[in-house]
């Protein structure tokens, strides 16, 4: 809008385009009803990462693993959301192969686990 | 548009310069409510608040320049009408 720069045809600077991440991409993961982890986390991942590695290696090194309910997660019954819509991941497929692109947002829901003292924390 | 009862306010530093100003505001605005907070006095009034130079001068017993309020004014709300003789805060509705 209102400045000279925007009147010209200079393309906008997209600061977080995937090319700026040196072959990697951003992936965000949130754990519903566990507000002790104050915000979804931002990870740098390869598009070739297998979903299983996310669960087995990356998340255990994140804030999630410091929550007392982390060891109790029954991974067979975790509900996943991708872009806030239900999603069934394939453990052995890459992120790329199942459409999880740059800046994708995944949420996991563990209905049996209700956070600290059952408060959703 | 909303159900808020329109209120104007003036907030002044707590000091000797503002004592006569607060007293004048109370005298000239019977509906004004004075809140004393740490280091600060906030005077609320429904819709309109007037500060008269003549009242301050009467309390002080000497001349007083209304613009010197700028030294001790912390905040205000409302449309401002200022002349040599009075400063009025008001909402038009």
């Amino acid at each position, binding site marked *: 809008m*209102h*400045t000279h720069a925007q009147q010209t045809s200079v393309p906008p600077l*997209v*600061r977080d385009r995937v090319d700026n991440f040196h072959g990697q991409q951003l992936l965000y993961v949130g754990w519903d009803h566990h*507000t002790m982890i*104050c915000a979804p986390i*931002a990870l740098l991942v390869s598009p070739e990462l297998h979903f299983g590695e996310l669960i087995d290696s990356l998340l255990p090194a994140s804030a999630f693993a410091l929550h007392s309910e982390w060891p109790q997660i029954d991974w067979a019954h975790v509900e996943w959301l991708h872009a806030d819509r239900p999603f069934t991941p394939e453990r052995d497929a890459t992120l790329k192969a199942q459409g999880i692109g740059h800046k994708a947002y995944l949420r996991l829901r563990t209905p049996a686990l209700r956070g600290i*003292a059952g408060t959703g924390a | 548009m*909303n159900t808020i009862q329109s209120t104007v306010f003036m907030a002044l530093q707590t000091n000797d310069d503002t004592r006569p100003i607060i007293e004048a505001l109370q005298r000239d605005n019977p509906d004004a409510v004075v809140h004393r907070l*740490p280091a600060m006095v906030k005077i609320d009034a429904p819709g309109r608040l007037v500060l008269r130079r003549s009242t301050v001068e009467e309390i002080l017993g000497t001349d007083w320049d209304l613009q010197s309020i700028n030294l001790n004014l912390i905040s205000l709300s409302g449309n401002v009408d200022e002349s040599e003789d009075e400063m009025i805060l008001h909402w038009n509705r």
Partner: protein
Amino acid sequence: MNTQDTRRPAGKKLSLKEKYAQMTRGLGWDTSYEPMDQVFDQLGLEGIKIHDWDKWEDPFRLTMDAYWKYQAEKERKLYAVLDAFQQNNGHLNISDARYVNTLKLFFTGITPAEYNAHRLFAMLGRQFPGPGAAIACQMQAVDELRHVQTQIHSISQYNKYFNGLHDHTVMNDRLWYLSVPKSFFEDAISSGPFEQIIAISFALEYLLTNLVFMPFMSGAAYNGDMATVTFGFSSQSDEARHMTLGLECIKFVLEQDPGNAAIIQRYLDKWFWRGYKVLGLVSMMLDYMLPKKVMSWKEAWDIYFVQNGGSLFNDLSRYGLSMPKYWEQSVAEAEHLSHQTWNAFYNFSGAAAFHVWLPSDEDMAWLAEKYPNTFDQHYRPRIEHYRKLQAEGKRYYNPSLPMLCQTCQTPLIFTEMDDPTRTSHRQLEHDGDTYHFCSDGCRDIFAEQPDKYVSAWLPAHQILQGNCVEPGTEAAGDPGADALRYFHVVAGQDNLDYEGSPDEANWRRWKGLDKTTPAAAA
């Protein structure tokens, strides 16, 4: 312009109104070598139409001689207090050393914003052809510079004794949470002139600065900080004038042309939300960081936004303006804002330039009283859990980087209106990329001007791109440690908990608090 009609016969004193008219009407002229629309070349870009700049009225009618006289008097008062503060070791008379952490946040987050406000008004004064508006902007540019200087002078006394105050300009440029206020000002300063003045003079000064300068500065006094309350109220005495400028400006623009109202409403909606998001930092200062508390965030929001803002919008409804979009949400969220914000800093205190701590039993009783609908239910159990972990020596620090809002740059720490345990998240696609937001308000702002916000410098992403390494040094390979050095945060000194910090140790020594415990002597 003809000034004859405001002149009086020689010898007769001019009235305030006449003096002001001499200054603001007599000093303007139309250019003759260059066309006016090229000299004031940003004016037409926003679609705002001004037909007669002479209709601009400054109700304070401050002339230059009066301005300098009163500003000089304010400075004399302030510096007398600062001398006394220094000579009497005023830093030892505060309620508790925890208090100084509010100053660290203020000094790194708000003082640089004052400097940006100075720059903004210096440029704005150049953009308005009406001398009334130009002079008001010029005075405000000088005011803002005064605020920066007096804040640096006042806080320098604390910098001699407490950590985290040593590098406020670099921190403001780089430190992750300070990108929230920094990007707010950069968003404003890169807008058109009318949007700038609505953003700062109206939305920020009129609707929102009271929240910083009244309860917080009153809180400074209550906590024994004579220096801060004095610079705060000295600054705020200028703000009273700035707010009036904001209100006069909006009325002037609305009265000039009926087409202006829709543009102004759009600016109000945007800047109310932008400002509200910055104030999350203030909410935790009031509720969690002042050792002696004056007023809760919710009470402050009720008084200064709901009551004061409501009155203002009642008045402006005659121009067809309405309360800014999503204002109801800000009221509902007042029950949650400070608790969620403080939790974020408890998570990330390893990467902050100030200390955090858990509220005491007494603090929690106060929070429960002020937040009867939310504190015991949602927030006390989490704090008690943290307390238990700390007692077991397992203090929880969040080792991950957070997902940030593309517009306000706050981590996604806020929750949905209907579920205070689920992260509020919005997203949209633009030009082949995905963008994430903390709220409908922030998503709408992006959608209005995507080309502006796609270039946001989001700290978490910059760290992951490898851009947060202190210039002139080699990356150590640990992005967290590299980022701290880049932020100019000294690890183990400026960050982490208050308990166990050098600040705490010094305070206990100065105040003689350890004398009775034999362990401390050993």
